[in-house]
């Protein structure tokens, strides 16, 4: 998976980014007022920033000679008033700078969060409709998780910070240059010329930084998985005396991670010599040319000092240009990957050809000549299956592990449709029936229990409105009421990583109770009591048989004893 996902990231450079750009553009257009406001704030910030540097130059000039003052209308005023005027501009500039900074942070900065939330919303909005098999191939959990975290984060930049940087670059760069040119043209040209190496260098550094931090972060993820695995299996390590081995393994991985992180931090530290070189080059140019100009009387000392400040100010936009290009590319690439999730086709199970109201027919299931074969297999998993199941009857499906029982159940309850032969549910093909209605009629308890990280109550309720009394009733049917009464928090007991760990049998019984709580007309039980002890299993089976009178049940097992209540048994394999 790792190899393929990194390959796909590389390929994305070549992929068409039009879709991503359109998505980006429409968001900007939809919020054009905020973006306009934000842009103006950035403009103001940049303007004020250049202005305050210029003021320092004026002030110095004003101090250095008695007759130099840049504002004609104050020429004849006393020096004290002139000073007061310059000081007010300085103070005003600083205050405006603060206000305009608040301005763009609360507009453009805010939009990046709003955009990222929307991108995240759209991920699940699309993934919830995915065919389940896509999660095993193209969009594995790892891929989707990293899309939702790192890709959304880098896409976020193009919705705000890239724009701030761009505006900053344009305005600050142009303002600085213009101001510089008004002071001294040739010195400005020289300073600009020697700094042109910066943008490509910064772009290179920034790319390297992103990649290396990404590598370190990815490795950290794997390392954390290892830690979780070690902690989860600590008991087994203790009894098998393999703890020492795992400890050595963790240290080894920790050291590899250390190197990767060091690599990343050292890349960031490369900005120090880069800045150093830039400073030295700018200073050298400034001194070599500037000293001559000043001593030759072509330039005032105040102008020289202002020029020095401006040259350093010019470094910022040039640095920024590198970042802008790199962030923009990365952001659009991430947005393109996200678009692939948004455009992935839905599970065909979700779309009915024409919706027919499901009526309670006498015959719940009718199957004729059913054959199924996996795409990558040469032989069919099963073929020529025929059956007819009347409403209220119990069908058993028996067979050893690995003979396709679960696949058959998936087909019979309409969750898998790529089979040959006829399958009719209440007299209709599944594709004629609407998904949500179908699911409210059919209950399915899978072999491997899956529970949500929520309280026991919420795991049973999910989207249904049930009172505690009803919940206890279903728990009792699944023989889980006693276990839960022993938990101090009862129905409020949390499950999941931060909650209590249920045993395999308890989990299975809880998933059964959850399915029962949805009061299905047809219930599929896919070997769902394999980890429950024999006595409890027996009790549950008789509970179900009694409680679900009149409902249809399809029971799957690899042991005959489980199927004692069945009217007929289909043997596989």
């Amino acid at each position, binding site marked *: 998976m790792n190899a393929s996902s990194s390959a796909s990231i590389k390929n994305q450079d070549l992929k068409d980014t039009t879709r991503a750009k359109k998505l980006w553009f429409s968001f900007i257009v939809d919020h054009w007022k905020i973006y306009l406001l934000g842009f103006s704030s950035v403009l103001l910030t940049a303007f004020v920033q250049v202005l305050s540097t210029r003021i320092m130059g004026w002030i110095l000039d004003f101090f250095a000679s008695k007759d130099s003052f840049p504002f004609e209308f104050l020429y004849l005023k006393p020096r004290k008033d002139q000073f007061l005027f310059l000081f007010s501009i300085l103070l005003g500039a600083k205050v405006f700078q603060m206000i305009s900074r608040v301005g763009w942070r609360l507009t453009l900065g805010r939009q990046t969060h709003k955009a990222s939330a929307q991108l995240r919303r759209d991920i*699940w909005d699309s993934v919830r409709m995915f065919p389940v098999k896509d999660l095993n191939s193209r969009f594995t959990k790892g891929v989707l998780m990293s899309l939702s975290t790192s890709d959304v984060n880098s896409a976020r930049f193009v919705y705000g910070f890239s724009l701030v940087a761009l505006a900053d670059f344009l305005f600050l760069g142009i303002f600085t240059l213009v101001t510089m040119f008004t002071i001294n043209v040739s010195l400005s040209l020289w300073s600009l010329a020697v700094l042109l190496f910066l943008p490509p260098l910064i772009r290179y550094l920034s790319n390297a930084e992103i990649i290396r931090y990404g590598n370190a972060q990815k490795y950290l993820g794997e390392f954390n998985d290892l830690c979780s695995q070690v902690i989860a299996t600590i008991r087994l390590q203790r009894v098998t*005396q393999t703890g020492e*081995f795992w*400890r050595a393994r963790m240290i080894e991985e920790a050291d590899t991670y250390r190197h990767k992180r060091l690599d990343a931090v050292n890349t960031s530290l490369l900005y120090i010599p880069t800045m150093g070189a830039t400073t*030295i080059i700018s200073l050298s140019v400034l*001194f070599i040319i500037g000293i001559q100009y000043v001593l030759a009387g072509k330039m005032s000392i105040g102008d020289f000092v202002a020029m020095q400040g401006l040259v350093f100010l010019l470094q910022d936009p040039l640095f920024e240009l590198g970042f802008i290009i790199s962030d923009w590319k990365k952001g659009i690439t991430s947005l393109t990957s996200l678009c692939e999730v948004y455009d992935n086709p839905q599970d065909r199970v979700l779309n009915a050809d024409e919706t027919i109201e499901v009526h309670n027919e006498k015959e719940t299931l009718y199957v004729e000549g059913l054959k199924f074969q996996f795409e990558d297999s040469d032989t069919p998993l099963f073929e020529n299956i025929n059956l007819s199941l009347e409403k209220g009857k119990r069908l058993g499906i028996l067979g050893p592990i690995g003979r396709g029982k679960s696949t058959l159940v998936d087909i019979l309850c309409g969750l898998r449709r790529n089979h040959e032969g006829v399958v009719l549910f209440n007299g209709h093909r599944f594709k004629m029936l609407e*998904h949500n209605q179908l699911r409210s009629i059919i209950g399915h308890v899978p072999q491997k229990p899956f529970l949500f990280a929520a309280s026991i109550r919420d795991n049973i309720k999910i989207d249904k409105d049930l009172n505690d009394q009803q919940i206890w009733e279903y728990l009792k049917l699944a023989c889980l009421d006693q276990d839960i009464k*022993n938990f*101090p928090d009862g129905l409020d007991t949390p499950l999941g990583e931060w909650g*209590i760990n249920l045993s395999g049998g308890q989990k299975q019984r809880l998933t059964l109770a959850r399915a029962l709580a949805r009061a299905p007309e047809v219930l599929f039980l896919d070997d769902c009591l394999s980890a429950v002890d024999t006595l409890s299993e027996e009790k549950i089976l008789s509970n179900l048989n009694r409680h679900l009178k009149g409902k249809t049940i399809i029971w799957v097992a690899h042991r005959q004893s489980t199927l004692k209540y069945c009217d007929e048994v289909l043997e596989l394999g």
Partner: protein
Amino acid sequence: MNQKQSFLEADEQDDKNIKKNALSDVKSFKYLLKFAAPYKFQFIFSIAAMMMSSFFTLSSARLMGSFVEDGLLARSYKESAFYAIAIVSVSAFSFLFMWLGRKLLTKYSSLAILDIRKVLFQHLQVLPIFFYDTQPQGRVVTRVTHDVEGIEQFFTSTLGRLVSALFLTTMSISAMLLTNFWLGLALVGSVFPAIIFIYFTRNIVRNVNRRMSKDSSALNSKLSEFINGLSVIRSFGLEEWSNDEYEVAVSTHERSQLDANFLYGWSRPLISFLCTTPIILLVWFGGKEVLAGTMGVGVFVAFVRYCERFFNPIMTLAREVHVIQQAFTSAERVVSFLEHKPEESVLGINGLIKDEHTMQGRIDFDNVWMSYNEEDWILKGLNFSIKAGDKIGLVGRTGCGKSTTVNLISRLYEFQKGDILVDGVSIRLFNREYLRSMIGFVAQDPVLFRGSFAQNLSPMKNVSKEEILYQCDTTGLSKIMHKNGFTLDTEIFEGGSNLSVGERQLVALTRILINNPKILILDEATANIDPAYEKIIHEAINKVMVGRTCLMIAHRLATIEHCDRIFVFDEGRLVEEGSREELFNLKGYFHNLHTAQF
């Protein structure tokens, strides 16, 4: 289960208690400093380099003043050139030393962090199993991962910036005070509003950051959970519901981000503004002095440069204050984790009997009582004896005490009354590591890791290839490897994902043969086996059992068909004991189990 839950809460309080117990920031930081001790010379050197760098930076500001006053104003080409060259070289040194210092600091910090990780990993191995039963797994994982990252983040990135910022500030202050004491003092004093502001908003900043990271991980877990459960969502038609639930998580996260954006949106520019007060004051007061002729323009220029140096360090502080706080919190947690008592405290001093003892495998339980909390007894006066080489099946309902019995033999828990004897010697007199190495354990899901077959088969010991291959032949693993074209050097993927469950179980069984224990415990070892492997695994198990005392925990009676005797447990007592036929004829507990299943 009952007392597990109360321990969950107890520890939650324990976490809160840390503050009350006055395990103060300073104390935990002192503890962490111990990890820096081995590298103290390197640390001192790198800090010295950064100090030098700050010194050079400041010198360049001072030189810039002289350059203007003595060079340009004096219209001296020679002086100007001299100062220009001095400024350029001093700047070059400043960047060079900074780079060097930061690189060294990062490197040695990362080594110190590695040492912290090593100590934590070691601690995981010596904590009593009881500790793991009573802590949510998530919390232990967080201590070892996230909390160390908090410390790491601080040491490898923030500390460097902070140290150099601190020096720069200190030196700027000294330079200003030396140049013009009262003006300097006034300017230094004027930064205090910024610092006070940062100090008083630090908790708000921390809470905002915490909320963001909490909401962000909640959002990530939700996505991960829903991805895992997509098939359940599909089969229940919960697509709409899941979208609503996810929307709540996204919006909560969004709101906390927007709140943070608002906080930073006004506070950062305000801090920037407060940081520029020195310049404004300088122009106001200094300007008046210059106008009055009591201060030189050169001094004024130098002061402008000093004031500019103030700006960045304080902004750094404002930006990184939450990282610093996080590091303190993380340090506290890591230290309190390391203070949890090791196995020794529960199980007593390790016994002395080890290698020289040749274990036979006889096991006796003599009126053993066991409880996790001295109140609810899990085992109530258990008595039995197992001859060396006997095969015993243990059956009973969940919670009947059969797993506890097995765990006591491995010394995972302490028992309170009675005694357990191995080869007639009290189990407490054995060296725990030796005892455990003499017990083989086959679990339902064997643990495999990324590494070659040879490493997986013999992770600890250096066993010869011939020996490994010989044992592979015995269990039948060789045949499977041959069929799939695997050799001992073939890489097994993480968790053994390139092998089937049956193949993984065969690896685990071969591993046992190589370790050659005298006692074997099988915990539902054949539960998930694919039919193609059922026969071969059964044969392998039969071979592995030869010459060892075997205890088989079984939920399914078919598993224990070949046992010499079967122990039936109920509520911490041994209620029935005997061969399969004997028990069946008793028409008691075992009979009930049997009829329910067949």
